[in-house]
């Protein structure tokens, strides 16, 4: 698949690297015991440490360290037994200490890789440079007062994992797949809630363009994007902008950009600070973090199944295509649901493709219409499994099954009960179907004649009529056989 972009005179290649900030799923902050819950009253979740009161000191959260290690394992990365917390010094209103505690020379997690899958069945590895732990800043609110910026420190000190990729990404779509994959891994591991709207997962995107095989061009960084849609939009806009500048003989200035979600355009940050000099140095309030291999191994054992493992299982055990399997596993809740449906009955394993279809088309459309997440689905995976089984065993027809599904969705009832109560069982009794067929043929003598004189297409009409008369319950296979044999006898 070519990602090259046609310019006026030549083709351009896009080079993208992502820095993802993922909020660690934890009760309390990285270096203080205040709550990390989202959406509380301003400055109500701020400890003396978070507000950088004089003499306050950081104490690290053990659970956050474990979450970072688990994530490192999920990214197929090296866990560093020795890492150091550094101070990154800069001034900003929502940075109360005047520095952010981060990791610079010695991050907790080193090199790793994740795989992204394309529709055509191919896949690609994106290399991870590192993952490090750091504190989040507070929040500046610029639009609530005409002359002031407001500062809320509730987020100040919340634990983040910064996951830095190599510039291996070549298009907006790849960037989208990459961030979805990271999100999926984090959610499988339960180390981040993956909620992009609430800012639990956000990305800085570094973009440059170059002529193929040329060296990397000058890059621009778009800060703090919090949806996959915006990431793609921002990349596409920025790539176009850079190509235009270059083709007009201009040069790209290395810049930090903001993406305006309403105009769909990027622009340089106006508070263009003079060149940053963060003066990183080891935080003297904290000692180096040493992790025993034993502890890493213990954590490894707590990790059950990651999206790639599950994808492989689906391909191997259920014969799903690589792409289907990757779509299904992308969202842990969807994939868990699928697993539970299959688990309902041994025989369903052979019908996995049908199960996938029922989930991704019928169930999804019901859930979407009603704005419900799959983990809150009124239809339990067990009942959906039962429904598919009933369908497979010809107890009901496909059409009836769809009606039953709606009924299940609305009433949370057992499909078997619905079928029983409403008498929806498929008619497989040949004599019963024969009677209905006879009736239909008698009532439509004209059509029968036309059919016999060569209008083959009318077969569908008779099928429809018979089905209608049986209230959709006639087994279509039997119905077809009977109808055809009756008509041929008339010939």
């Amino acid at each position, binding site marked *: 698949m070519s990602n090259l972009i046609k310019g006026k005179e030549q083709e351009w290649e896009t080079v993208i690297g992502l820095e993802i900030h993922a909020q660690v799923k934890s009760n309390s902050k990285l270096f203080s015991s205040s709550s990390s819950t989202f959406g509380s009253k301003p400055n109500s979740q701020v400890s003396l440490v978070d507000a950088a009161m*004089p*003499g306050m000191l950081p*104490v690290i959260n053990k659970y956050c360290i474990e979450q970072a290690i688990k994530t490192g394992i999920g990214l197929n990365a090296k866990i560093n037994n020795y890492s150091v917390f550094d*101070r990154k*010094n800069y001034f*900003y209103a929502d940075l109360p200490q005047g520095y952010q505690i981060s990791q610079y020379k010695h991050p907790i997690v080193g090199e790793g890789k994740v795989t992204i899958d394309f529709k055509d069945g191919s896949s690609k590895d994106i290399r991870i440079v590192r993952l490090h732990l750091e504190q989040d800043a507070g929040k500046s609110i610029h639009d609530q007062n005409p002359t002031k910026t407001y*500062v809320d420190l509730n987020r100040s000190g919340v634990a983040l994992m910064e996951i830095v990729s190599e510039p291996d990404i070549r298009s907006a779509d790849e960037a989208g797949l990459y961030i979805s994959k990271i999100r999926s891994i984090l959610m499988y591991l339960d180390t981040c809630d993956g909620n992009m709207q609430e800012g639990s997962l956000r990305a800085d995107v570094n973009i440059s363009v170059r002529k193929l095989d040329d060296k990397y061009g000058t890059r621009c960084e778009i800060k703090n994007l919090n949806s996959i849609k915006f990431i793609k939009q921002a990349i596409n806009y920025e790539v176009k902008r850079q190509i235009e500048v270059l083709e007009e003989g201009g040069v790209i200035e290395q810049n930090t950009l903001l993406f305006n979600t309403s105009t769909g355009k990027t622009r340089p940050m106006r508070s263009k600070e003079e060149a940053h000099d963060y*003066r*990183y140095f080891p935080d003297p309030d904290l000692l180096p973090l040493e992790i025993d291999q034993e502890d890493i191994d213990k954590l490894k054992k707590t990790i059950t199944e990651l999206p790639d493992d599950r994808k492989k299982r689906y391909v191997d055990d259920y014969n799903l295509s690589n792409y289907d399997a990757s779509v299904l596993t992308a969202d842990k809740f969807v994939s868990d649901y699928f697993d539970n449906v299959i688990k309902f009955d041994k025989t369903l394993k052979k019908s996995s493709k049908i199960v996938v279809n029922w989930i991704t088309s019928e169930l999804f459309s019901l859930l979407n219409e009603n704005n419900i997440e799959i983990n809150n689905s009124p239809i339990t995976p067990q009942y959906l499994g039962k429904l598919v089984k009933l369908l497979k065993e010809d107890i009901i027809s496909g059409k009836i099954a769809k009606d039953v599904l709606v009924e299940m969705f609305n009433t949370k009832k057992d499909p078997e009960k619905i079928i029983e109560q409403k008498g929806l069982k498929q008619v497989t009794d040949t004599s019963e179907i024969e009677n209905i067929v006879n009736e239909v043929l008698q009532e439509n003598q004209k059509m029968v004649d036309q059919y016999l004189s060569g209008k083959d297409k009318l077969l569908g009409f008779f099928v429809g009529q018979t089905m209608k008369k049986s209230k959709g319950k006639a087994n279509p296979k039997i119905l077809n056989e009977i109808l055809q044999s009756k008509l041929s006898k008339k010939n």
Partner: protein
Amino acid sequence: MDFKSISQLKSLLDENKISIKEIAETYIKRIKEKKELNIFIYFNEDKIYEQVKEIEKLPNDKTLKGIPISVKDLFCTSNMPTTAASKILENFKPTYESFVTQKLIDQGSMFIGKTNLDEFAMGSATNTSYFGNTINPLSKNDNPLAPGGSSGGSAAAVAADLCLGATGTDTGGSIRQPASFCGVVGIKPTYGLCSRWGIAAFASSLDQAGVFSKNVTDASILLEEIAGHDQRDSTSSNVQIPSFSKNLNPSLEGKIVGIPKEYTVDGTSDEINGVWEEAIKSLEKKGAKIKYISLPHTKYALPTYYIIAPAEASSNLARYDGVKYGYRAKNPKSLDDMYEITRSEGFGKEVKRRILIGTYVLSAGYYDAYYLKAQKVRKLIANDFVQVFSDCDLILTPTAPSAAFPLNEKQNDPIKMYLNDIFTVPASLAGIPGISIPYGHDKQGLPLGIQLLGKHYNEQEILNAAFALEKDYE
């Protein structure tokens, strides 16, 4: 009435010869009489009487019940404002109590005020304070002397009998040097022995709380109260704190005392070398073995310190930005304006100088040449002590190269001022404990201090030796 020591006052209290209220009255009167020494940044009679009522309710077995204590104004206290002697902490009223002061409160101490210091503990003469100089109470006639620094107010408060004990902090000598200048006992324990929680930070890898007192026994009593593990300070040591005062033992039989040759520097007065000589003889007489040793990197301790301390300070003091507390410039036009004017007006000259030095040595392109280099030399300095302590129990040196100097001397030459800490800084870099006790006088009758250094967590050893030497003056 004259109160000589904590134990003496305790027995007066126990025998009901004096009430806590009377103690308060006595000290309030004295403080008012010595106002011109400018020892306290915060002093409020009412606050003292409020405490009296609370203290009276405490059981009698509280070690420091009713004992008047001064607190260096670098410790955050919830009952009294905290300034770090800086305009930038104008009107700052902590909602919390530092670990050390809380421990003192728990034992029934009476805080009589917050003492003056060099702004953010940066100085050696208590002359960089926003609230003016403190005058050494031992000054004579019209020749006001510096009390040393940075904990000059606390040392002076003890020397002037305005309290029986005081807290201090020592980053490069800020307890030991003023103790020497004011003729009192001052101990800086091992780095990590006392929690830094609630002490406005200067240089985190060096800052250590300690105490001033009138004698070694009192220093032991106070130190065992303020020491201890604190989960809120990641560098706080989790070690058993012995009962220093009960264990005090003046016997030096079999102890090996190291005398480092590098502590003989140009500019040290003959009187100081003489006092050192005397102390060596005394230790020998008491059964100690004297060993002449070498700490080869001593010379580099000061320049190392003057890279590391400012570097850490430049970052530690970034939080003083006018947003959350303290001083804020009037009518700034922008956020940067607010930062720059607030910090320009809020910090004094020495603090700005150190912030800028620290910013420079950490900045891109200079980190390796300055900061990293200093950290490596620090390692060598620490190693020197490790080596020496493999066959020494103690080290004896002078505390400072001079006696108290006139107030405004050395003001215009920072390096000259920095050289004051030449004998105290190496121990700070190595994190080992050190104590200064008064030992003799110069020709003008000014006290001279002698310093004992020990192994990590071996406070008892230096307290014992100090206790033995102290007896020479009883």
